[in-house]
Structure formats: structure tokens, C-alpha cells
């Protein structure tokens, strides 16, 4: 019953988001709070978030398939469906951000491979295709094809996740948050978020053969390393800032996971709670990344002395579209799994 309530709620949310999307198609980006100094907002943040999730999950799926970890086979199948849904919704958000989504096809003819966006344009669909191939059951449980597929997944997912660090490279060059941990931070957040989502799904579906909370703990430490590094850099560099709320939240998650390992490794509630908090933490980190590079005037002081400090508060329409995309991930994943069960007879 709860399952169907969630599905109905997410479908309703997505329908409302769809209406906002259609309105946006007619009116362009004038329904957003974006402006000349804050060019990328909640849509791009949502895109980075969902694509990071998709990448993290795909890495999990690829590793489990490559090393033939049979205990998580069912989880891996669900993961492929969730990864595909996240990619579709990330693409929808980019479409919303462009205002006229089909203009995006011009990237095909542009062929500027120096642009991170071009790589995104090719890598994301590639990951989608790899997910579909897996879901169709074309990839055997062992053999060369499985190895090739897994390696392709790892390369494509890790490549586009890392590509997302390049979008702000010119701003880093211009003195914005010029710290060496951005790449590791982006990668760690992706793996962390993806694993958190997989843990949440494992708890919800009762698939708990492996100590996923243990893996989550390791990834939490991995995610904290670049954040701690950024914090140290921020103490010595004026161009860097670290959101203390994120550090606090990440540390709290770490403590929950340590407590789980010490007190009750088989406990389901604490890893689920930690997973939800991780999903929130990754979303906040993406928000911080977006704001970090746009909240200050690009031209340095004193030339920007009388420039207005840019602010950005997303509109209800923007929130609706992003929440609708997140909701779409839920029912789309369920739909794909249902279809797979129907076709596969599983």
C-alpha cells in the first residue's frame, strides 16, 4: 500500500513538473530566478546531482558485475534501472535549462571536444545505452562481453563525473576556489551518493546479504577527505570557502555509521537514516558548488566595488521541476523494473 502511495505521489509531482516544463517551453527561461550574474541555478544543480547519482550507481553495478558478486545480483538489476532513470531525468533538467531542449542536438554537429558539455552529451547517453543493454539481459554473467561491458561502464561513468569538475575550470583559473580537491570531491560525492541510494533500496527491498553500511562508512571517509582538505585550504586562501553546515552534516553521518558498525552491524534503520542524510548532503554540496562560483562578481575587487552582490533564490516553478524530476526517478525506476520482470518473467 505504501509503495503505491509513493508511486502515486511521485507521478502527481512529475505531472505538475511536466506542466511547468511545458510553460517553460513557451516562455523560455523567464520563469526562473536566474539572472546575468547567476546563470546556472537549480536545474543545473539538479542535473549535476542526478547525473552524479547515476554515475555512482553505475560504478556499483559495473564493479558487482565485473567481480560476479552474486549476492547483490538483484540489487544490481534495480541499480541499473535507477541509474537509467536518473540519467533520463538529468537530461530532462538540462532540456528545461536550455528552454528549447531540442536545440541541444546542435552539439552533435558542433563537435567541439574541448568543451566538457560535448563530452557530457556523448557520455551520458552512452551510460544510458549501457544500462539498457544490461537491463535487456544481453550481458552474460561471465565471459569477455561482461568484462568489456563492465570496463566500459566504469570508464564512461567515471569520465563524465570527472568532466563535471571542468565546467568551472576557467573560474578556478580566475581565482575562484582554486583548491586541488575539487576533482576528488566530485568523484567521492558521486560514489557516496550512489552507494547511499543503493543502501536505501537494499533496506527497502530487504536485500541485505552484504554489509552495505560498511562500504558506506568507507565512502563517507573518502568523501570527507577532500572536504577536510578544502577546509584546510580555505584557512590559508582567501578565494576558498567551505560550507560549515556540510562539514557538520558529513561528520554526523560518519558518527552514525561508526555507531552502526560498533553497536549493531545488522541494524537497518541507522544505515537507512545515514543514506537519506547522505542524499541530502550530496544535494547541498552540489548547491554549494553552484553558488561558490557565482555568488561573487567575476571581475575582482576593486573593479567590482560598486557591483551588486548577486543573489539567487529559486522560484516555485524551478523547485517544482526539480522535485518532479526526482519523483520521476522513483516511478520511472519502478516502471523499468516492472517491465523487466514482465519481459523476463522474473
Amino acid at each position, binding site marked *: 500500500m505504501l509503495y503505491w502511495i509513493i508511486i502515486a505521489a511521485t507521478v502527481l509531482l512529475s505531472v505538475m513538473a511536466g506542466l511547468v516544463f511545458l510553460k517553460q517551453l513557451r516562455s523560455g527561461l523567464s520563469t526562473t530566478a536566474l539572472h546575468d550574474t547567476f546563470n546556472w541555478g537549480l536545474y543545473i544543480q539538479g542535473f549535476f546531482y542526478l547525473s552524479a547519482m547515476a554515475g555512482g550507481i553505475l560504478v556499483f553495478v559495473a564493479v558487482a558485475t565485473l567481480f560476479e558478486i552474486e549476492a547483490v545480483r538483484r540489487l544490481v538489476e534495480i541499480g541499473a534501472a535507477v541509474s537509467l532513470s536518473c540519467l533520463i531525468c538529468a537530461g530532462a533538467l538540462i532540456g528545461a535549462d536550455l528552454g528549447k531542449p531540442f536545440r541541444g542536438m546542435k552539439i552533435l*554537429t558542433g563537435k567541439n571536444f574541448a568543451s566538457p558539455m560535448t563530452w557530457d552529451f556523448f557520455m551520458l547517453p552512452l551510460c544510458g545505452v549501457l544500462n539498457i543493454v544490461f537491463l535487456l539481459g544481453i550481458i552474460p554473467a561471465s565471459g569477455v562481453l561482461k568484462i568489456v561491458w563492465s570496463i566500459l561502464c566504469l570508464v564512461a561513468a567515471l569520465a563524465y563525473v570527472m568532466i563535471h569538475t571542468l565546467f568551472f575550470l576557467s573560474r578556478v583559473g580566475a581565482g575562484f576556489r582554486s583548491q586541488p580537491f575539487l576533482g576528488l570531491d566530485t568523484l567521492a560525492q558521486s560514489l557516496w551518493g550512489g552507494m547511499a541510494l543503493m543502501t536505501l533500496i537494499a533496506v527497502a527491498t530487504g536485500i541485505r546479504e552484504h554489509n552495505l553500511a560498511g562500504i558506506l562508512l568507507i565512502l563517507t571517509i573518502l568523501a570527507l577527505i577532500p572536504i577536510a582538505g578544502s577546509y584546510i585550504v580555505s584557512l590559508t586562501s582567501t578565494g576558498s570557502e567551505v560550507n560549515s553546515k556540510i562539514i557538520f552534516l558529513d561528520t554526523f553521518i560518519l558518527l552514525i555509521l561508526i555507531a552502526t558498525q560498533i553497536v549493531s552491524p545488522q541494524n537497518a534503520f541507522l544505515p537507512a537514516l545515514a543514506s537519506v542524510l547522505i542524499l541530502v548532503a550530496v544535494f547541498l554540496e552540489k548547491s554549494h558548488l553552484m553558488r561558490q562560483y557565482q555568488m561573487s562578481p567575476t571581475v575582482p575587487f576593486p573593479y567590482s566595488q560598486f557591483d551588486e552582490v548577486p543573489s539567487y533564490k529559486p522560484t516555485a516553478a524551478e523547485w517544482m521541476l526539480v522535485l518532479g524530476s526526482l519523483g520521476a526517478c522513483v516511478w520511472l525506476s519502478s516502471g523499468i523494473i516492472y517491465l523487466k520482470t514482465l519481459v523476463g518473467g522474473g
Partner: protein
Amino acid sequence: MRYAMVIDLSRCVGCGTCTVACRAEHGTPAGVSYNKVKKYEVGKYPSAKMKFLPILCMHCQDPACLKVCPTGATYKREDGIVLIDHDKCIGCRACVVACPYESRQFLWDIRNYYPGNLPTPYEMLKQKDFQKGTVVKCNFCLQRLEEGQLPACVVACPAQARYFGDLDDPESEVSRLIADYRGTPFREELGTQPSVYYVKG
């Protein structure tokens, strides 16, 4: 041939004529300005001074905007002018984020100068060239250069603070000014190799 502009900061009085001339030449919609003049203070009372920094597209030789453009809408001509093909621009705004000089603007909307009224005949004439949802910027008044004229901001500047010419020609006025007055581009350390130089003559 490499077009370049030299701006003499000691002559600039921050009047904004260049901004107005640019708007008139291009017929840019309200809120869009290819040519800005940044104002800032130096020193402390009683010897505080107001200074001005005119900023436009720097027409970099190694432009960050060109690298990030996924469709090739941003391109550089052989004479060094960086342009945007608006039919190719998809409005992703990657170039706006990448530009370290705030030289690009996205057309969120095409607004006229008298809200609530019909566009003026001049606005109707000029604004048909603008496509909502694309990025715009200074083009060194290419349409004027092709007719053998100087950019509008250079001609209009009442303090004669702007000079325009061929940087590849060592005898040109811009080359001479850069050599004589040690002209430097704004934020040279970024390595974008701008074609706009500043001198304090």
C-alpha cells in the same frame, strides 16, 4: 592582421558615452550592454579618487568561452575577432560562466526601453536580429569595420581614450601605444591573451 583596442585609462572620465554609442550601434535590448564602465575608488579621504575601467569583450586569442562552447557557436576569425553564430547557440550559458571578464550576456528576454509601450521604430528595426535564449557580446563593430569605419565606442569617446588598429603592424597606433606606454591586457595572468590593452598614458 590582428585587430586590437587600446584604452588609455588616464583619459577615461567614466562618462559612459561608449556604452550609449554601443547600444545605439547594435540596438541592444534594454538591460543588455556590450560595453560597460566599471567605477571604483582608490585612496582615502581627503585624497580619494574615482577611477574607471571600461570593459568589453577582450577578443582573447585563447578564449575560455570558445573552448567550452559545445556547438562551435563561438568562433574566432583570422583577424582575432571572437564572434557568436546565433543560429548555432543553444543557450547553455557555459561561455557566460567561463568568461573571466563578464563580457557575455544571455538574452533572458528581449525587453524594450519603454516598458508598457510599443517598441520604437528603431527598436523594431534593430531587435529583430536578436534571438531570445542566446548569448550576445561585443563584436568589435564588425559591421562598421567591413565598411572601413572604426568601432562606435572608439569614434564616440569624447576623451579620445580609445584607439583601434592592427596589432600585427608594428607601425600602427595601437602597437606604438602598447610599446611606448607598456600596455597590458586586463588580468593578463589568466593566459587568455586579450586583444584589448590598457595604458596609463
